[in-house]
């Protein structure tokens, strides 16, 4: 292939153009399509967990409402806003890459990463609170197994479990299995997303992306927005489902 190395490429060769694509546009569309196919598998994956949630919630409505009311609604709301903000900065990062504005592009990527890490920090605080209230299900956590203190009538201690009529500690444990499975998988996706953003920041500092070639920013953006959408559903389903029964 020595002759290839010496002759110039036939197409108006962008250095990022792979040989099996006709031009940059075809390459970009193929990349976007591939990311969407991956996101379909993600929809199926999270769909299974949403199915488990719906099933057990229909079986144990009172326990799910009681357990949900124990979650910290302030931290949950703040985290939702943090994540929506990060989706916005991600969208702006794609915009600034498309329009070739390098400094705001890097800035938006860094902001997205910082907001993503803020989300994970707040999530860690919530998990730690649940650990101290003995709400980690099963016997996986040594020294602090699932054993919440059930509040008597009239007791308003937020660390105790306030059971609505028909709820039991065992059924509440089912909610927490699902809560930790779903928010845990979501947090894992956030951690992977933070890694991808780090890659984007490093390579955009190396001026690797431009209006012709911005597929990595675009497809990682798609992934980031998808993770945001999962949270858009998790937040009302996990945090808000029993609030109207709280003082009933």
């Amino acid at each position: 292939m020595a002759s290839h190395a010496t002759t110039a490429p036939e197409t108006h060769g962008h250095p990022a153009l792979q040989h099996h694509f006709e031009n940059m546009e075809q390459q970009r569309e193929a990349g976007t399509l591939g990311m969407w196919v991956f996101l379909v598998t993600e929809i199926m994956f999270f769909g299974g967990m949403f199915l488990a949630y719906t099933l057990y919630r229909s079986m144990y409505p009172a326990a799910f409402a009681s357990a949900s009311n124990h979650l910290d609604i302030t931290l949950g709301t703040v985290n939702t806003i943090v994540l929506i903000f990060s989706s916005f900065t991600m969208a702006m990062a794609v915009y600034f890459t498309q329009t070739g504005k390098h400094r705001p592009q890097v800035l938006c990527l860094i902001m997205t990463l910082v907001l993503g890490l803020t989300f994970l920090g707040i999530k860690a605080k919530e998990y730690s609170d649940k650990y101290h209230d003995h709400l980690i299900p099963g016997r996986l956590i040594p020294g602090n197994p699932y054993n919440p203190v059930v509040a008597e009538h009239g007791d308003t201690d937020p660390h105790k479990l306030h059971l609505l009529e028909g709820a039991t500690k065992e059924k509440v444990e089912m909610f927490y299995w699902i809560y930790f499975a779903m928010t845990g998988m979501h947090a894992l996706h956030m951690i992977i997303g933070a890694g991808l953003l780090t890659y984007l920041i490093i390579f955009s500092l190396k001026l690797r992306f431009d209006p012709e070639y911005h597929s990595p920013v675009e497809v990682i953006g798609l992934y980031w927005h998808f993770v945001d959408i999962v949270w858009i559903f998790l937040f009302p389903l996990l945090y808000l489902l029993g609030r109207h029964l709280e003082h009933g």
Partner: protein
Amino acid sequence: MSEHIVPVRIYVTIFLVLLIGTLLTVWAAFQDFPWQLNTIVALTIAITKATFVVLYFMHVRYSTRLIWVILAAALFWMGILFALTFSDYWTRDWISIGY
């Protein structure tokens, strides 16, 4: 380049819509609506927010037909997942088979 670049104005609008949706869903959660309306309101707001993210942040509104088909297929198959599972669970006590 035939690529559509979404203007900043639209991104800011969607961001504000998502913020308002979040505050609205928190407010609605504390209202004691009759029947199952609390869940329905929460899901309606969530689906609306998700639709805005998909159409504008994820550029689906400006994407090729192929992307629309891929997304529709995903939602259709998730519909099957829910429909078939619940057609089983919701009808289990309709008949008794003698044990």
